[in-house]
């Protein structure tokens, strides 16, 4: 029955992942990501 357990775990994780993603978008994280990603992050790429 371990197989059923694994499938259950997979489904739970998928749902948790989707829920977290939606929550993150809802509280405005996606906008933060976009604002950072379209500008050159000088410290990120190792300049200066």
């Amino acid at each position: 029955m371990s197989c059923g357990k694994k499938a259950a775990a997979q489904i739970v994780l998928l749902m948790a992942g989707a829920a977290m993603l939606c929550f993150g978008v809802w509280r405005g994280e996606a906008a933060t990501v976009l604002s950072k990603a379209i500008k050159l992050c000088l410290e990120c790429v190792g300049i200066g």
Partner: protein
Amino acid sequence: MDKKFSGVSQTMSRFRGWIQAGATLLTNLHLPNFLKGGLYQGAGKTVCVPGLNCYSCPAASGACPIGAFQAVVGSSKFSFSYYITGFLILLGVLLGRFICGFLCPFGWFQELLHKIPTKKLSTKKLKPLTYLKYAVLLVMVLLLPAFLVNDVGMGDPFFCKYLCPQGVLEGAIPLSLANSGIRAALGKLFTWKFSILLSVIVLSVLFYRPFCKWLCPLGAFYALFNRVSLFQMKVDKSKCVSCGKCARACKMDVDVTKTPNHTECIRCGMCIRACPTNAVCFRYGFGDGKEKENAATLRENNNKS
């Protein structure tokens, strides 16, 4: 049906190089930006790409999950990113380290370097180093950007800033070549990160995927999900003749017959091609695929084909 999937596995593994090239191209669609020395600034960058691909790469079509995570965590508004974590959990469950083996541009880069003909060294004895990447994930990506903050509550993207060689390869080098203002800005940090990139390049020629094995926080995250991933390795015990060829073929030091869903397995499929009896193949779906009724139907299908 079983045989057919085994055939698919063979094909996938054989054309892996092309899939990697295609994935790298899709991840970096805006090629003209290399000449312009600018970045793509469209809404596509709200979404992350699966592999490690710097979003400061002129051509990048999406955001780097690790970079984006640190950007969110390091901003004064948030100290954890549900958006990126959720996204990575989804990808981890759906694909696991298949992403490392097939979709990651930096993984492909290291593999190409490894094709340079020199004496190759084994990483079997360096196994403890594989745990380093979890420390990188925990400390440099999760904790330091969230908690080591300045007076305004902003943290540095520690992994990006001090460790990530992909940022130099895709960001700093092409941008500084095309843009004199950026060239003038190169400083000590660039020297440090350029040395890291050089070391990774040299190590990649000698070892197979050293960065993936030892340092990559994204690989570490996906590794945690390899066991529950829908994409898995399947070994047909009835076909296996225990010749050990698969374990010898594996460049990630995994014995697929003992631990088919090992954290280090990047689903490259070298074991599939090494197996003389076609006992190893990819499997995609919920559960283990080892249930009795399933096995029965498989046997039935085998008999049919």
